């Protein structure tokens, strides 16, 4: 048990350090002759690129969770909000194929935000107005999004075009770092900036203070004149929009098409990243990179085919790592105190 704690402590405190180390190693491997095949699998530029691509929806999902949960609303429905966003983005993209690509992508992304927000609004209504258990409410959102997206989905639809790579001048020519960080699609940049933005807002703004007050001690917040439930509605809907953006990323930047159930548990892994990051944006970012890396590793190992392990077991990697990580953080993370509790002013 002692070693276990040490290992997981290292993992969690280190997830940001881990991100840094990963880069450092990648630079070394890339710039020297050390880049033999097995090392490249673990820390090659392609592995890092894949890590970021896998981490973006997790990051956005975790930010969505933080927005809701910091104000006291449990959100296990991220998966559903993501799926709704992905479907909305796809449906509009297909309808606007004929338009100029930029406009079409803009409209599709907007739809994803709206649908994610709408799903979150339903969740907020159920949780706040109708006092439904928030875990059940989240389940409703997941089922509803899965059902509606499958019902309206037309397998003959084809979307044409997606967000292209934007190379940031100068920065993108930095070895390794430039190719990984500064040569991405638009939503990836937005996601990275959102982490910083949310961190600043949450801990250094009026809004952030109010949000945290509502999540920690709603009664006190109410006493000083904060409308507790209004903050919760606003934050939950904002969270839903961010989850919708994660869906838009999947369809408009990563895959280019929609598939039924394409979120494949990402909403839940994002939830784990949020918990692992102790409900902080930067912590959740580190956790998302860690989880993204396990997916990249899975992918690289499968491609390279260098280990004699059945592919099913390699595919389990992201899920098993999630379990191990969530099981490793007992006592060191703390959810907002008033989470999941209905607030009624007196």
């Amino acid at each position: 048990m002692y070693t276990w704690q040490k290992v997981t402590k290292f993992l969690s405190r280190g997830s940001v350090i881990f991100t840094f180390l990963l880069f450092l190693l990648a630079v070394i491997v890339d710039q020297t002759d050390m880049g033999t095949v097995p090392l490249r699998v673990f820390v090659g530029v392609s592995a890092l690129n894949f890590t970021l691509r896998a981490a973006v929806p997790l990051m956005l999902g975790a930010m969505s969770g933080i927005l809701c949960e910091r104000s006291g609303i449990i959100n296990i429905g991220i998966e559903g909000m993501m799926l709704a966003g992905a479907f909305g983005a796809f449906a509009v993209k297909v309808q606007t194929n004929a338009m100029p690509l930029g406009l079409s992508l803009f409209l599709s992304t907007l739809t994803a935000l709206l649908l994610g927000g709408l799903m979150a609004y339903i969740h907020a209504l159920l949780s706040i107005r109708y006092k439904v258990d928030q875990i059940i409410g989240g389940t409703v959102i997941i089922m509803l999004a899965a059902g509606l997206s499958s019902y309206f989905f037309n397998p003959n639809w084809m979307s044409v075009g997606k967000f292209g790579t934007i190379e940031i001048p100068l920065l993108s020519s930095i070895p390794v770092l430039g190719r990984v960080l500064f040569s991405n699609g638009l939503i990836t940049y937005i996601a990275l900036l959102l982490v910083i933005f949310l961190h600043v807002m949450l801990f250094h703004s009026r809004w952030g203070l109010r949000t945290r007050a509502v999540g920690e001690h709603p009664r006190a917040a109410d006493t000083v004149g904060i409308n507790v439930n209004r903050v919760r509605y606003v934050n939950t809907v904002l969270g839903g929009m961010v989850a919708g953006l994660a869906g838009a990323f999947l369809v408009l930047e990563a895959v280019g098409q929609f598939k039924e159930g394409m979120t494949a548990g990402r909403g839940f892994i994002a939830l784990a990243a949020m918990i692992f990051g102790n409900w902080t944006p930067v912590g959740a970012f580190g956790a998302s990179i860690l989880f993204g890396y396990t997916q990249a590793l899975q992918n690289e190992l499968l491609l390279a085919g260098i280990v004699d392990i059945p592919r099913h077991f390699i595919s389990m990697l992201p899920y098993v790592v999630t379990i191990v990580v969530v099981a490793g953080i007992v006592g060191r993370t703390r959810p907002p105190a008033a989470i999941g509790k209905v607030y009624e002013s007196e």
Partner: protein
Amino acid sequence: MEESTTTEESLFKTAWQTLQIPLLAVLTAFLTGAVVMLLSGDNPLVAYWGLLQGALGDLGALSRTLRRATPFIFTGLSVAFAFKAGLFNIGASGQFMIGTICSVAVGINFEGLPGIIHLPLALLAGILGGALWGAIAGWLKVWRGAHEVITTIMLNYVASLFAAWTVFAGGTGGQRPGPLSDPVAAARAISETRHVYDSARIPRILPGILDRVHWGIIIALLVALLIWWLLQKTTWGFEIRTAGKNPHAADYAGMRVGRTIVLSMAVAGGLAGLAGAVETLGLNYKFAPEFTGGAGFEGITIAMLGQLHPLGVVISSFLMGALDAGAAKMQFDSGVSREIIQVVQALVLAFVAAPSIIRSLYRLPEKGKGRVRRLGWG
């Protein structure tokens, strides 16, 4: 004489009070589903008529309904049982998978064993497999404080990958076939098991009349009764319900809450595992990765709709079974995509979990009835 009418009347009243929310929730969900269909240009009347025909229209339809209801009873009980202990089991599909492969492993081995031993052994393997899978989540919660919502979901993915591996036909890259894969099928690159021996199959109740209904449904009803007895009539059931309502009080009263959590998840997992075993030994007779058996989130809707009561779960399972069975005919007759059923199920869950929506819609008096404990991240 007078007295007996009043008791009858009050009995009727209690029955109505218990049933009004679930009944109206289902009705409202269907109406909302109809609105969705109207919005997308489908005709809900034709669709629902087709649904009814497909679910109860003839013996074949009835047989399909009962056949679909069978695994639902187990998974509904699984979710309801965990809920009673204050746990949210969204891992029924993983437990179902593990139960399935365990029962198949017994079923395709031990040739020549008499049915009276072989079948119970295979069922038991399914229960144990599912119980083990469920207990992992319970144990992680007690030992490490890992929330079961996340662990059970992740275990679902692990379970389906694991199950897929056991029957894997072997890969192009020289990957070895899985331990349960059928060599004959594997030679044609099909990933599945052999058929289980006749001695491990659950017989049909009325072959030729209700073609797809096997004794599994009787097992399901007996298990529902057993769960009711366990929860209401035993000390352990009392401990579970106390731990579910107030773990601190249970702890204070000297009950071993940790043990209760692990065992409750084991029972919940065992029930879902049994669903997999019964589905396989009664109907499919083999396993292939695409046999998910429909043990997804339906169990949650069923448990909530049944108000967490075993009898309620059984009734809800028949309803969900009917929806599932009728969906194909509905799609065929009316062209309405069968996924609308999933939407209706989600709506049923929403309305049954939010009685205040139903009450305000139908102008029912608000009642401060004790609800189940909130789940939370705790």
